[in-house]
Structures are given as structure tokens and as C-alpha cells.
């Protein structure tokens, strides 16, 4: 849920709750005020009537005096003093409906000790209408206030939180490899200023650490190469000597193998860190079909030897915008993978269309999650010649061009699918 909708949601909830409680409170207060007013006028009338009765000992002509209905009942025996006020509805023939009335009945005795019961009715419909009108008005007022405050609140909140949203979008686009600053705009809100500062510092530190690390690994790989070349050259020379005994031969052989392995490692790691320096690589439209065909040529004899059948269905116009050398490395690694882990008499199928490149090949069933193979130094074989970098190089290239690659394995069928055009329009 968005922050803005969440705060609006709470605001609405609380406002409605306040409205219900406040409305009820208002309703009952006004109601009691109005009723007290009616009751007061009823009591006043009662006092007038009682005074008259006491003075003249008759019931005056009330209808003329008060203009509304009064019921009088005389009894022949005395009564206790008694009074009560109640609500009722009385049928009105003129408007053909029931009208709300408030009535008071009270009892007393005339001077001649005869009891009487008098009921005074007063129409309360007007007052109730007033009450209803007041309530409606309050309701309307409240809702307009609510609406206005939400309408005002939305843009204000949006304005207030703007620095935050900018920060989020910039931080999402943060690329550790580019030296573009986060570029957070100035804000006069202290909290956001602080947040921006923290993010800026973090980004700066991350980049520095990354660059240092990269520089270190590149330097290391480069510096290792010359001593490696010395070792290799010395073993090459040593090998040429005559009269080597079996033991020396096996020693030289071991040195040679270790050197080769070390070389493969540094070479692979350097290649990976090189791919990251994407900006230096010249891009152009390359034909995947062409590259696959060249690469297949490199493995032709090996595939013949392993009796691997190759099927190829490729669109000529399948062009990808990337560096030609890297495209070659990508295809070569994928193909070498398909050849290496194939079985004798197996098959390799290449499919290229304008969005996907799919390599399907036979092989042995896999017990591990094939996606793990994209990680560095994860080897599917225990062969000492393999250093476990092939597929992570592939992954690095794929990532650097924002493509997607998946590896699935069903029984003996392995499939690597490269989705190289994510937005099919470009």
C-alpha cells in the first residue's frame, strides 16, 4: 500500500469515527435543548392554567388562549397532584398523516375539591424538522470539510514526500559500475536531507570499495601473468633437455599442469572483470547465426568423434547489438558446454529467432539445480582441466547486456535459453 493512500485511509477512518461520535453527541444535545424548550413552554402553560383554576375555579377557554389542543377531564373526587411529559403521534386528518406531538398531562383539584386531569398537546414536528435540518447541515458541512481536506492533503503530502520518492527511484537505478552520482535534489526537510546525505555517502563508499576491489583483482591477475610466463617458459626449456629420467618428467608434467590451471583461472577471472568495463567495448549488430556457425566449425571434429548430431535452425536476420568478441565468447562457451557434457551419439540443437537463442543437448541427468552452474567455481565435473568459470562468464556477459538466461534439465535433455530481446519492439 502506498504511503499516501495509507495515511489517507487512516485519516478517513478516524474522521468517520469522529463524525459518528460527534454527530451523535450533537444530535442528542440539540434534541435535549429543543425538548427542554417545549417542556418549558408546557410547564408555563400548566402554571397559567393552574392559576386560572385557582382564581376563578373554572377551566378557561384554552383553545382561544393557546391556539392548540387541550383536553380537560373533570372528576367528582379529589386527586393527587401529578404531572408527566411524553411523546406521541396523533393522526391529522388534514394532512392525512400522523404528526409528532409532545404532550403533558397533569392533575390537580379545584377549590371545590373536584379533581381534574388536563392534557396539553404541542406539535413538535417543526422542532423535529429543525433538528433534522441541523443534523443534515452538519453532516453536509462535515463531508465537505473531509473532502476538501483530502483534496488539499493529497498534493501537500505528495509535495512533502517528493524528495523521498526521488531518492527511491535514484537508488533503484544506482549502478555501482558507472561513476554517475546519485544526484539527489536539495530539500529543506531535515529528515530527508539527512537521508539523502546517508545515501550519498553510502553510494560513494560502495563505489570506492568496488573500484578498489576491481583494481586489486585486475592488477593481481596482470602481475601474476609475467611470473606465470616465466614458469611456463622454464618448463618448456626444461622439457627439451635430453636424458630426463621418469621422475623429472613427471615433476615437469605436474608443474606444467598446475601452470595451465593457474593461467586458465586468471584468464577467466580477468575476462569476467573485463566484461564489466562495458563502456570500452565497441558494440555493433552481430549475426548470431554467423557466430554459431563459426563456433560449430571449431568443434566439428570433436563432434564427429563423439558422434554428436547437430541440428540448426536459425533466422538470418537475428541480429543482436553487442560486442563481437564477447558474442563469440558467449556462443563458444555455450557450445563447448553442450559438447563437453554430451554423451556419445547424442545431439545438439540450436534454435535462433528474433528473440530467443536456445541450445538443447542430450547429456546425463542432473542431480543439482542447473542454475547453480552459473555461479563461479561451480563445477559439474571433477576434471582438473575445468576451472568452473565457463557458465559464469556466460552469465556475466548476459547480465551486462541486460539479457536473461535460464538453464533447465529434464532427464537427459538439457536446455539453455537465452532471451536476448526482452522488449520485442526494438
Amino acid at each position, binding site marked *: 500500500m502506498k504511503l499516501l493512500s495509507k495515511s489517507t485511509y487512516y485519516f478517513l477512518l478516524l474522521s468517520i469515527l469522529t463524525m459518528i461520535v460527534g454527530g451523535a453527541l450533537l444530535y442528542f444535545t440539540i434534541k435535549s435543548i429543543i425538548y427542554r424548550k417545549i417542556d418549558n413552554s408546557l410547564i408555563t402553560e400548566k402554571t397559567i392554567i393552574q392559576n386560572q383554576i385557582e382564581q376563578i375555579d373554572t377551566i378557561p377557554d384554552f383553545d382561544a388562549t393557546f391556539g392548540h389542543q387541550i383536553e380537560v377531564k373533570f372528576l367528582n373526587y379529589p386527586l393527587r397532584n401529578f404531572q408527566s411529559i411524553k411523546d406521541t403521534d396523533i393522526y391529522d386528518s388534514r394532512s392525512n398523516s400522523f404528526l409528532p406531538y409532545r404532550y403533558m398531562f397533569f392533575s390537580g383539584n379545584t377549590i371545590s375539591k373536584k379533581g381534574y386531569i388536563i392534557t396539553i398537546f404541542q406539535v413538535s414536528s417543526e422542532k423535529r424538522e429543525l433538528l433534522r435540518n441541523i443534523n443534515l447541515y452538519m453532516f453536509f458541512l462535515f463531508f465537505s470539510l473531509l473532502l476538501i481536506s483530502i483534496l488539499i492533503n493529497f498534493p501537500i503530502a505528495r509535495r512533502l514526500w517528493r524528495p523521498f520518492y526521488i531518492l527511491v527511484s535514484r537508488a533503484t537505478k544506482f549502478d555501482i559500475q558507472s561513476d554517475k552520482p546519485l544526484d539527489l535534489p536539495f530539500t529543506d526537510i531535515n529528515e530527508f536531507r539527512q537521508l539523502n546525505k546517508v545515501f550519498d555517502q553510502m553510494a560513494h563508499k560502495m563505489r570506492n570499495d568496488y573500484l578498489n576491489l576491481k583494481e586489486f583483482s585486475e592488477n593481481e591477475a*596482470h*602481475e601474476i*601473468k*609475467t611470473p*606465470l*610466463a*616465466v*614458469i*611456463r*617458459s*622454464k618448463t*618448456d*626449456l626444461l*622439457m*627439451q633437455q635430453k636424458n630426463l629420467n*621418469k621422475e623429472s*618428467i*613427471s615433476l*615437469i*608434467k605436474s608443474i*606444467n*599442469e598446475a*601452470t*595451465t590451471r593457474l*593461467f*586458465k583461472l586468471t*584468464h577467466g577471472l*580477468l*575476462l569476467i572483470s*573485463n566484461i564489466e*568495463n562495458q563502456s*570500452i*567495448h565497441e558494440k555493433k549488430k552481430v549475426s548470431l547465426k554467423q557466430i554459431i556457425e563459426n563456433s560449430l*566449425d*571449431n568443434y*566439428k*571434429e*570433436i563432434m564427429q*568423434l563423439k558422434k554428436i548430431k547437430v541440428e540448426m535452425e536459425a533466422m538470418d536476420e537475428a541480429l543482436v547489438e553487442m*560486442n563481437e*568478441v564477447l558474442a563469440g*565468447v558467449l556462443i*563458444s*562457451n555455450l557450445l*563447448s558446454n553442450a*559438447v*563437453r557434457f554430451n554423451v556419445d551419439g547424442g545431439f545438439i540443437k540450436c534454435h535462433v529467432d528474433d528473440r530467443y537463442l536456445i541450445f538443447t543437448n542430450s547429456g546425463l541427468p542432473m542431480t543439482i539445480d542447473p542454475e547453480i552452474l552459473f555461479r563461479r567455481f561451480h563445477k559439474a*565435473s571433477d*576434471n582438473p*582441466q*575445468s*576451472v568452473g*568459470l*565457463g557458465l559464469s562468464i556466460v552469465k556475466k556477459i548476459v547480465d551486462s547486456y541486460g539479457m536473461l538466461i535460464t538453464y533447465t534439465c529434464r532427464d537427459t535433455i538439457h536446455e539453455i535459453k537465452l532471451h536476448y530481446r526482452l522488449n520485442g519492439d526494438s
Partner: protein
Amino acid sequence: MKLLIIEDDRSLCRSINDYLKMEGHICEVAQTLHQAIYKAEDNIYDCVILDIGLPDGSGLDIIREMKSNKLAGGILIISAKSSLENKLTGLKIGADDYLTKPFHFAELSARINSICRKNNFLGMTEIIFNEIRINTNDNQVYVNDKLLNLTKKEYDLLLFFMANRNIIITKESIVEHLWGDDVILTDSFDFVYTHVKNLRKKIIASDGRNYIKCVYGFGYKFSDS
């Protein structure tokens, strides 16, 4: 052939010198940019083997110097830097080839031979070794004047052997030569074995002698002794 080795690492420089001398080349050595330019201007070399990272400057300057003075001779860059742009600038300003450290000497030899073959236009399009004749123009191999039907890999392999006569070459160097650095092949030694076997068979089938000898523990040696 007369070669100039420009390499600042003393030990590596001596090894290259020893090896190339063993192959019968005449070698001179320079360890700084200054020395190298001085030597390159005074002598004519068939090929200059050049390390780019020199203590007193970039080896690329030597290439520029040689090209602007129109000095003959091929240029082979050997460098620890494998990055693409280094390779490209080197080749763009006139180097003939680029070899990444660490390399096998057999590979170095093959590259030098190939550069010299390309640069000497007259009469060098054929490599003749006893009854074997290789025409590098149209990539044809004849044994006793009979055309040999070789695959591309077998042809490359034969050329590689030719460049390293009487020298032991390892299976690793053959793999790297035939399939490149970026390729990792598990069963590659078997493939080398198969290719060598087929090549040998084809030469012998045309009444050629068996020149490719197995060397215990290391690999092969191409020699007629």
C-alpha cells in the same frame, strides 16, 4: 631468422632468447624502450617480439617509431594485458599479431613463423620438409607430390609441428593452438591424440615417413632423426 626480443622481465627475456636460439634463430635482446628503439633503428630484423609494458614507456611507441621510419620486419606483441582494446590498438597501429602471457614457446614459434611467412612475399609460400611440401597460399599439403586431404585442424596441427621441428611440444600447447584460450575442453587430450593419429596415418598413407613421435609424459616431437 634475425629477431629482436624486447622484454623487461630479465628471466623471461633470457628464456625466450634461449629457446629461439635453440630453434636456430639469431636473437638480440632489449630490456628498455630506449635500448629497443636504438636497436630497431640500427638493424634489420625479420621479426620484433615486443612486450608493451616497459619500465620507461609503452611498447606501442616502438611500433609507431618503426612504422614512421618505414622499418621492415614483423611485429609480435607479447603482453600480460589481454583486454580487447589493447589488442586492437596494437594491431591497428601496425603490429602483426598479439600473444597473451603466459604463452607456450611452441605457440610463440608458430606465430613468429607465420608472421615471417606473411612478410616475405617471394618464394616463401612453400614450406618444404623432406617429402612434405606445404603451400601456405592455398593451404594444400603434398607428400611425395601427392595431395593430402586434411581437415582444417589437421592442417593447423601440421603447420604447428612444422614451426616447432625437433622440439618437444606439449598436448596443452596443441589444445591452446587449435582451439584458443577461451575454450575449455574436458576430453581435449583425447582429441589431440585423435588428430595426431589421423594426421600421421594420412602422411604414411602417401608413403611419407612417420615424423610425429610420442614423447613420454609430455606430448609430441616432430623430427626426422
